[in-house]
């Protein structure tokens, strides 16, 4: 079995220590594969003077050329013929450009095994019939990654019903908060557990609205609030986790232990789920490097910088080391949940939203478009 295959068969999803050698071998294997099958990637390696065999120790991972997600939005790099990729996912494209990421069958198999293990670790599987409320829209062919992962999420427990909060209208998507409010109040009277899934901002706005309307319900036992996708354009409205948990308990009667947050990216399809202390531990299938905002040099644990995500999961595209638009910190030890894997704290996106400017065209540039 290939090193990648063995890594994704690893039964302990957070064993980053025990998989040290295996991860390195898998990265080497993945890097060689892309160097052989993707000409632009091979050129990037050559320009950087890097060969897959240079990946000998864990430190060498930092020397592997890192590609920004923005690069994938502007350039299409495939290591397999595009028509042989059964699943295509589009990133949400904050700021205009979108990246299309295609997955081949082998990659999808790895992904599935990983998702099953991680969800099992976090006790997300349930046999109880469940009602789902998705703060997104009904997935369609070629829809965004967020919609697909939200749908996949409804497979964790048998779905009795699925309600989608975003309505597709001519001028984009509009959240139908009234519908959600009615459904939640109705479901609270029933016995079946409810699971909500969506952006923290939408969930928060709904909770705030229900609070303002004086609505307080207790969702049936086993109900969960699941969050994913970060605060994105609502970064300014971001609230402290404690305040969020308090509000959720007050309005829906869901305690902190039943609120789980996910992290992931189209360009780094690894499932990060928060632990009981609400930290994103790094799964064995990935590594995280934090890099200096100026020099890109890897930083020690505890220091803030750019978040660089690494995984050998993908065969279809050279996504083995991607630079996100996020700023974060990697913490080494001391998580009260007992998980020994390092955990990642996301501080926010690079660039700030509320810069005021009168330079011609600056608004577009700050939003992430190309000048």
């Amino acid at each position, binding site marked *: 079995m290939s090193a990648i295959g063995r890594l994704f068969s690893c039964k302990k999803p957070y064993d980053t220590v025990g998989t040290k050698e295996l991860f390195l071998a898998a990265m080497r294997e993945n890097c060689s594969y892309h160097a052989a099958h993707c000409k632009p990637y091979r050129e990037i390696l050559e320009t950087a003077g890097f060969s897959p065999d240079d990946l000998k120790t864990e430190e060498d991972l930092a020397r592997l050329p890192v590609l920004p997600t923005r690069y994938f939005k*502007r350039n299409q790099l495939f290591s397999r013929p595009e028509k042989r990729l059964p699943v295509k996912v589009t990133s949400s494209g904050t700021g205009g450009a979108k990246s299309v990421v295609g997955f081949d069958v082998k990659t999808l198999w790895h992904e599935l095994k990983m998702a099953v293990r991680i969800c099992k670790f976090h006790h997300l599987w349930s046999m109880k019939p469940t009602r789902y409320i998705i703060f997104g829209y009904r997935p369609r062919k070629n829809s965004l990654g967020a919609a697909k992962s939200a749908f996949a999420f409804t497979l964790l427990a048998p779905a009795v019903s699925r309600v989608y909060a975003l309505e597709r209208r001519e001028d984009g998507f509009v959240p139908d908060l009234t519908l959600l409010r009615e459904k939640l109040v109705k479901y609270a009277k029933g016995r079946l557990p409810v699971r909500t899934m969506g952006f923290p901002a939408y969930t928060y706005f709904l909770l705030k609205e229900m609070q303002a309307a004086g609505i307080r319900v207790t969702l049936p036992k086993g109900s969960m609030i699941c969050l994913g996708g970060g605060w994105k354009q609502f970064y300014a409205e971001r609230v402290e986790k404690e305040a969020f948990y308090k509000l959720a308990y007050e309005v829906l009667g869901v305690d902190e232990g039943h609120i789980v947050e996910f992290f992931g990216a189209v360009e780094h399809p690894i499932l990060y789920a928060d632990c009981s202390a609400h930290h994103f531990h790094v799964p064995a299938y990935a590594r995280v490097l934090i890099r200096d*905002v100026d020099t890109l040099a890897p930083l020690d644990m505890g220091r803030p910088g750019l978040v660089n995500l690494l995984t050998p999961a993908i065969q279809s595209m050279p996504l083995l080391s991607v630079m996100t638009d996020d700023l974060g910190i990697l913490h080494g030890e001391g998580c009260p949940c007992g998980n020994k894997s390092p955990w990642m704290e996301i501080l926010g996106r690079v660039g700030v939203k509320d810069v005021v400017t009168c330079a011609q065209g600056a608004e577009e540039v700050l939003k992430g478009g190309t000048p």
Partner: protein
Amino acid sequence: MILYRGKLYENGEQSRLIDELEGHIFETLSAREPLRPTEVIAACDRLARRAREGFYDDLALPLLESFGISYARYQDMVGAFSADVLKKKLEIELGADWDALPPIGKNTARRIAPLGVLFHIAAGNVDGLPAYSVAEGLLAGNVNILKLPSGDGGLSVRLLSDLIAEEPRLADYIYVFDVPATEFETLKRLARLADGVVVWGGDAAQRAARDMCGVNTKIIPWGHKLSFAYATRSASDEDLRALARHICATEQVLCSSCQGIYVDTADMGVLESLARRFFTIFKEENAAMGRTDPAMRGRNTVNLLCDELERCFPLILREEGVSAVLKEDSAPELSYLFRNVWIKRLPRAEIVSVLKGQKGYLQTCGLLCGAGERAELADLLVRAGVVRVTGGDLSRTIFGEAHDGTFPLREYTRIVEIDL
């Protein structure tokens, strides 16, 4: 919050008040005693004095903090409302004899009259600016309707209602509404009442204003602008240092902020040597000033990493959170902002042909050259569309200077002639 004839109202009263607005404005315009600039100046001066004594510090200090403006600079800005400065402004913009224009021919009097009604669509990029825009309109004798920018912190309404408290006659000349930009029909109604629409903001705001105004309404566009530096081989290290300091100090977010440097050459070698010379100085000034926000540095680093991978540009200098990108084309464009500049070739013979396409967008050029060539180059730049030629500090301000190539008070007034 609505300010209407000196009284504050909740936004819920908006449509009722707008229904009454036309009648009230006609009443004011029909009144026998028009507003005199001297009355406006006296009220502004009293307000400026209170501001200088710290009366508005509770509102101003947090704003200064968030915009990174020093208290001394704020005091300077307040100075723009003092009687001396406003009187000087009238004289500079409308002429020393603005109050007593000589007659034309034997029997015809000539006078400067207000446009009538101004509708100010304010932008949110500088707090206090909406109030300043109204003050300029008042100085020219106009009735002013102000649409507050979204996210206005209340400073404009407070300043304007205090101005009315200083001079109660101003109540009939100031109307402030909090109409969101999405209420197009309401904005159209307000625009229809106006003789002139003063529009602050980028292309989208300018286009929207054109759509809401009839052809018989004058539009005074204060749009977003692009500024840059032009250097010849004679540019001194001091020139380059002043430019680097300006770039670091303004973070390149102002209309007058330098986005990039044109070099008077067709040779990539010359371009590169100037780029390297500038970059060394740029790093020194950056270190002296302290690096900019890490989130912005990170954003630029990721963008530049992407550019490096794409290999579109011949040279990218990137260190310590500042960067300079050598480019082969000559198009004027925005940089990544926050201490990133482009450096391009532009031989002087091509200044007009290259820049002319950006007509209306160009503002300041920091001209870094020898004394002997300065007049010639400044002339070319002006003909290409630039309205301000400075040294390395492109954002320097001088009281009495024109605004984007024109005097606001001239835009807000008419010359009328009356046969006696």
